[in-house]
């Protein structure tokens, strides 16, 4: 509606400024609502709403009457994409509360309160002591004086007089509320009359004492008449201890509908009482007691000043927001978007929530609509759509640093100074709207804004969910490590004049120390204190919980485990002295290899977390005291320890990689190969740092599982033109390579093995190459003719259906093993170098799948793709920098993955376009259309290498296994959410076998667990040398063979589950379709017996016979079969 071209913007400003003074301004209107007048009120902004009035909102209905074609064309420009816009519309419709229904009776309650307040008698001016005593006696109300408490002998008097104005402000008035806030609050501002104040009251808390007394009088007055309708409590507005307010919760008279709104009664200062210029952020308003006389440069009290100013500005900001909403059509929706965005990131107006909530967002946006840009131009255009406004604000937040360059809006005679906290000084209203922010919350906000901007600029993928739906503030997914430490009673720095609580002061100091001490080891530090709670009007203040702080940290994986810190050079005297002062005895002068002499710090070798802990406890001890450092607790390191041989793993992977390089060189150096070698490609998880157990081998204990490698020769016409013949020819090739290798190096052992005996079209042979060092490689030949030949078989009409089926299966296996696997191997190992945490995260996620006995169903490659996507598209966060965040985010991804409709897409190279993505989507839709029951394709995992999406999911999981995966992830993730920082990592990996129909226990002699223990057992070195390596048993895993035989024999009737790592049980589920009796037929796929009514002649699955068969097959390997049902 208001597509105002930018030329007219200036004019528009004047109009909107005018509207501030116009008689139709919102406060008057709001006012009128109390007087029950029949004046015409604007539907969007009047607080007095009936159900009818709340309904028609121009932008809220997702199904708009507008022409769809038109909006389709507009959506591309004004929104990220039409998909994004549609989802935003859905969300907005979802979160908007139904004002009529939600606030039944709210207007009556407000009116009632107003009339009661207006009827409160004036009170004589009293001294502090008398006032306190009187209220205590007559109404049992304790005056909520802020700290420091007023001097008992103070000369000034406290008084009460009828308020000059009562008004409704905040998001209720603007209709910018969001549903999911548990209790919605209506802000009611009581403007105190000027008569009870003096000009000098802005100094030394006097205003705040008078305000507290006023508030206590209000409580007394309301209590007298409305005790039965409302429950009354004190609370700090936004956690600011200077702003106690009264919270009135309506007592619901009807049991069935508990009212879920509350009314905040906020005493406010008259707008023009105190001069703006005296309360600027650089001024001092709290005079220190010692040197009361000297008026030299007193330290500024920005927080105190802004708290006072904000008390006088409630109505001014209501007017500002109202005029902004009139000026720009997208403003209210943009505020809603901003509100959701902030809430999902854990930000709020409360001091403990960062001091940047929806009010700050809305005023920020409103001010940017008027100015803030270069030369006073506005940053936002009123013609922007809600999404454009939202994105522009996010962009502004991310690109402008308001700490180093304070932003001053329309205040020519004031220029801010550089400080730790951000400044956005709103001149006309004389207030820094960001005064509640801390250095860390501002850094966090900017980091979130940057991440979100990246998300919104991502052209290929839809980032709606990560922008608005996902809750990014969950500590275990957001941060790599969380420190919990007690707040000491002592203070460690010089007192300031400003109103700063003990906790805040400690936090500030702690933040400074940690920031300097940890430097580039961490990317983010956040300090969280507990939120203040409400308290009864009778007690003197909120009950303080055991004060402790949570310091959350995001690591920089490149630097976090650095052992030696380099400080300044010895010649730079001043810097060196500063360094020494900061680090104390830990700092030492060292000479380095390159000849430089530097101040340096050396830390003890250990895991990432132990180094980190060492540093933090040293810093705490040095800058605070022993007690603080002893109270330190680290949360997050347990995930690191869950992995087998976590410390040495990267070294083990590296050793195998080196052995592989030697192997490749050996093969390349071979002379006399019948064909020219093209390439060798690794396809084993052990060669891409992603196997659960890192590969460990020694001459005595060769590698347990051979590492698979493919070899490809240059094309040749000499290969036979027949698939079976090619497979047989490969045997001859492998025999030749084997003997050549053995001739070249006598220490190498080789042997040709057979596989896929009953599937003639598939690869039938491999060559095991065993080095003296214990490294074992399994070589297979890749011949690209196979693909064509198989396709020819499939297309040939004369092929019998069984062969065709075989050919289809062989072709899909060929693509997986010979084309996709080498590419995946390459990509994963590249990214393991790029992201140091990718490898351990993949391994931990694999361990999770394995512990829950899904490893036979969900392929390793699929897990790797899932985890890679967490690192490559980490939004709404950055790429994980600890195993914990990586693992938990993966769990969350699986929980949320609606695989029926959504494909997994991994873009390894960052080159995919939205067209690629949409074609993959289309492909998934096509699959679902052909196969809605998901009997063939269940999960769809595509990458830039494989747009078919089924390379690694063709063989499973089945729909049942996929559903189990999701169910397990959901319950695990729920535990994570419920427990929060108290989470015990082990509970996520514990599994129960009670869900399965029967459980086959493997006798301990054969179980993998047992073998692992044996392998790790310490042996005497001389014994080890004597014992011969048993090469025969390389790659021998009887339990796995048993399992695959069972799977083959009972393919249709039983689903088996097994954990490869623990390996002590095989669990099974009967196919539920087979449990019901069927009529007799010859070609059943499972053992049967006569069941049900003998006359009917029906047969059913013969469970006991099958179980006995399983026992007979297992023979000595099975110790016990437990039947659950």
């Amino acid at each position: 509606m208001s597509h105002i071209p930018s030329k007219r913007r200036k004019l528009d400003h004047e109009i909107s400024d005018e509207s501030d003074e116009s008689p139709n301004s919102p406060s008057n209107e709001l006012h009128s609502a109390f007087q029950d007048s029949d004046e015409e009120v604007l539907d969007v902004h009047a607080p007095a709403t009936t159900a009818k009035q709340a309904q028609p909102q121009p932008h809220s209905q997702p199904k708009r009457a507008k022409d769809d074609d038109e909006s389709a064309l507009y959506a591309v420009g004004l929104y990220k994409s039409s998909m994004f816009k549609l989802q935003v519309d859905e969300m907005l419709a979802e979160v908007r509360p139904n004002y009529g229904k939600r606030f039944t009776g709210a207007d009556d309650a407000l009116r009632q309160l107003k009339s009661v307040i207006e009827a409160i008698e004036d009170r004589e001016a009293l001294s502090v002591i008398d006032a306190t005593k009187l209220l205590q006696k007559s109404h049992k109300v304790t005056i909520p004086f802020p700290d420091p408490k007023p001097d008992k002998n103070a000369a000034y008097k406290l008084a009460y007089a009828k308020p000059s104005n009562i008004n409704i402000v905040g998001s209720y008035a603007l209709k910018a509320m969001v549903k999911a806030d548990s209790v919605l609050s209506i802000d009611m501002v009581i403007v105190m009359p000027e008569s009870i104040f003096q000009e000098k009251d802005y100094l030394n808390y006097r205003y705040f004492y008078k305000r507290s007394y006023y508030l206590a009088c209000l409580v007394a007055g309301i209590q007298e008449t409305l005790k039965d309708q409302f429950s009354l409590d004190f609370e700090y507005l936004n956690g600011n201890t200077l702003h106690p307010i009264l919270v009135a919760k309506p007592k619901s008279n009807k049991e069935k509908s508990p009212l879920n709104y509350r009314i905040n009664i906020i005493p406010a200062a008259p707008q023009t009482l105190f001069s703006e210029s005296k309360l600027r952020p650089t001024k001092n308003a709290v005079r220190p007691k010692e040197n009361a006389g000297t008026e030299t440069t007193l330290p500024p009290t920005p927080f105190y000043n802004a708290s006072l100013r904000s008390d006088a500005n409630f109505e001014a900001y209501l007017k500002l927001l109202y005029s902004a909403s009139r000026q720009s059509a997208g403003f209210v929706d943009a505020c809603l978007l901003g509100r959701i965005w902030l809430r999902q990131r854990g930000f709020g107006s409360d001091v403990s929530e960062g001091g940047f909530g929806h009010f700050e967002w809305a005023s920020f946006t409103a001010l940017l609509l008027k100015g803030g840009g270069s030369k006073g131009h506005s940053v936002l255009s009123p013609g922007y759509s809600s999404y454009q406004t939202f994105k522009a604000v996010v962009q502004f937040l991310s690109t402008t640093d308001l700490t180093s360059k304070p932003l001053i809006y329309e205040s020519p005679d004031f220029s801010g100074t550089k400080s730790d906290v951000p400044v956005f000084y709103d001149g006309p209203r004389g207030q820094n709207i960001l005064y509640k922010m801390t250095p860390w919350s501002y850094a966090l906000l900017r980091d979130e804004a940057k991440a979100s901007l990246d998300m919104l600029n991502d052209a290929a993928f839809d980032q709606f969910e990560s922008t608005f739906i996902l809750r990014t503030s969950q500590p275990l997914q957001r941060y790599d490590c969380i420190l919990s430490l007690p707040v000491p009673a002592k203070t460690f720095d010089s007192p300031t004049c400003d109103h700063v609580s003990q906790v805040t002061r400690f936090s500030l100091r702690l933040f400074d120390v940690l920031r300097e001490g940890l430097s580039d080891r961490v990317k983010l530090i956040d300090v969280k204190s507990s939120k203040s709670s409400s308290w009864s009007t009778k007690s003197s203040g909120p009950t303080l919980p055991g004060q402790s702080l949570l310091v959350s940290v995001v690591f920089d994986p490149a630097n976090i485990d650095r052992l030696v810190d380099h400080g300044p050079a010895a010649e730079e005297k001043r810097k060196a002295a500063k360094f020494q002062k900061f680090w104390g005895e830990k700092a030492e002068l060292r000479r380095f290899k390159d000849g430089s002499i530097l101040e340096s710090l050396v830390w003890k070798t250990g895991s990432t977390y132990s180094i980190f802990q060492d540093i933090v406890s040293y810093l705490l001890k040095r800058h605070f005291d022993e007690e603080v450092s002893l109270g330190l607790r680290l949360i997050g390191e347990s995930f690191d320890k869950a992995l087998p041989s976590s410390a040495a793993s990267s070294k083990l992977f590296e050793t195998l990689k080196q052995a592989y390089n030697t192997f490749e060189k050996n093969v390349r150096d071979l002379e006399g190969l019948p064909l020219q070698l093209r390439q060798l490609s690794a396809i084993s998880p052990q060669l891409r740092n992603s196997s659960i157990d890192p590969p460990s081998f020694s001459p005595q204990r060769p590698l347990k599982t051979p590492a698979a490698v493919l070899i490809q020769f240059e094309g040749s016409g000499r290969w036979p033109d027949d698939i079976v013949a090619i497979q047989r020819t490969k045997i001859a090739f492998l025999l030749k390579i084997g003997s050549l290798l053995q001739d070249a190096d006598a220490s190498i052992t080789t042997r040709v093995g057979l596989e896929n005996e009953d599937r003639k079209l598939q690869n039938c042979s491999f060559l095991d190459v065993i080095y003296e060092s214990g490294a074992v490689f399994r070589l297979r030949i890749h011949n690209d003719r196979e693909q064509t030949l198989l396709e020819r078989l499939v297309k040939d009409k004369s092929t019998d259906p069984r062969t065709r089926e075989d050919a289809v299966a062989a072709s899909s296996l060929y693509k997986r093993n010979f084309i996709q696997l080498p590419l995946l191997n390459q990509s994963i190992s590249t990214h393991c170098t790029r992201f140091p945490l990718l490898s351990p995260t993949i391994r931990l996620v694999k361990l999770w799948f394995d512990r829950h006995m899904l490893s036979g169903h969900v392929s390793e490659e699929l897990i790797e793709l899932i985890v890679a996507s967490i690192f490559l598209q980490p939004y709404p966060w950055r790429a994980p920098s600890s195993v914990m965040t990586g693992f938990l985010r993966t769990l969350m991804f699986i929980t949320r993955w609606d695989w029926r409709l959504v494909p997994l897409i991994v873009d390894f190279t960052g080159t995919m376009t939205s067209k690629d993505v949409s074609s993959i989507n289309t492909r998934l839709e096509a699959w679902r259309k052909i196969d809605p029951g998901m009997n063939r394709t269940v999960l769809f995992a595509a990458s830039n290498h494989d747009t078919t999406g089924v390379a690694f999911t063709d063989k499973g999981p089945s729909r049942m296994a996929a559903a189990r995966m999701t169910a397990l992830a959901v319950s695990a993730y729920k535990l994570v959410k419920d427990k929060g920082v108290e989470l015990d990592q082990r509970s996520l990996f514990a599994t129960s076998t009670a869900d399965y129909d029967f459980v086959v226990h493997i006798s301990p002699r054969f179980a993998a667990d047992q073998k692992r223990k044996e392998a790790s057992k310490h042996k005497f070195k001389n014994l080890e040398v004597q014992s011969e390596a048993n090469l025969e048993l390389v790659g021998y895993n009887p339990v796995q063979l048993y399992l695959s035989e069972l799977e083959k024999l009972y393919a249709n009737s039983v689903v088996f589950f097994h954990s490869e790592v623990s390996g002590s049980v095989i669990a099974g589920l009967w196919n539920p379709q087979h449990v019901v009796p069927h009529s007799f037929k010859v070609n059943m796929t499972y053992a049967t017996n006569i069941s049900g009514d003998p006359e009917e002649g029906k047969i059913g699955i013969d469970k006991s016979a099958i179980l006995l068969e399983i026992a007979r097959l297992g023979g000595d390997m099975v110790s016990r079969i437990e039947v659950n049902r």
Partner: protein
Amino acid sequence: MAPQQPSTISNFAILPILLPPSPALSHLPKTATHTLYIRPNNPKIPTEADARSLFVVNVPVDATVAHLKGVFAHLSGGVVGRVEDVVFEGQAQIPSQKSTVIVERKRKREEEPENATQAPELPSTWDRETRKSGGNAVVVFVDARSMEGVLKSVRKMQKSKDYPLWGHGVSSTKVPALGSSHYAAHHALRYPDPSALQRNVDAFMTAFNAGEIQRLREAKRVRNVPDADGFVTVTKGGRVGPAKAAEAERMREEAEERAKVRTGEGFYRFQVREMRKLEQGELVRQFEEDKKRVEGMRERRGKGGFRPET
């Protein structure tokens, strides 16, 4: 187990077999049985041996010839040696046709001499085959009388309850044991002797090449002989090679490329207009598609599907 067991089910006789108890499944009753369904063999393509063979359904997975011989020896009143052979599902019929096969072979050999050199299979890697659950088998007896005798005793057994015991009389020396030794043997057999393997491959390639030559010769013959309708089949291997599919594809692409260069993409005004129209249509289509997808999401997630996570 129902007290009144029916003796037949859709003209199959029911033959329960006692299963040996297993220490792993101590809770099962000692009298656990496995049910076989048997009837005279009556395949679609009749063979000489049909009259003396039985069709057995629901064979246990660990069945061997010895196991079934043991069962039928029990049924023939303890007389061993009535069963001549057992053919399991998926196995070739050849072994059971010992008497006739020589005659047939001879006749065949005259017609298709290339079959003479059979391509050898790869060496087996299992010491003992296992059968798919619920599979069937054909049991060939030495004569029709013994087969009928067996069927009769099955019917009688309904009363006597003297069921045969599975694995009775199977000597452990002839039939390899299951369990870990089974898999250990498999692991050993996977790596055959290299020279034997080489011989196997050589034999296969000889046979394959012989077959190839034969096929070429056949194709050449067909090339010159018109069929019944007077057409000559086009086959591979003429003087001028036949067109390749890939080549044809390449030619087509080239032609298209040339056409594109000639007129250009935005050469005519109507082309530009059409292109724009197409783009617009694409946008609308995309929007419609997205709308459907969002609707689908809403339906699947139900109420609150788009609500931000708490």
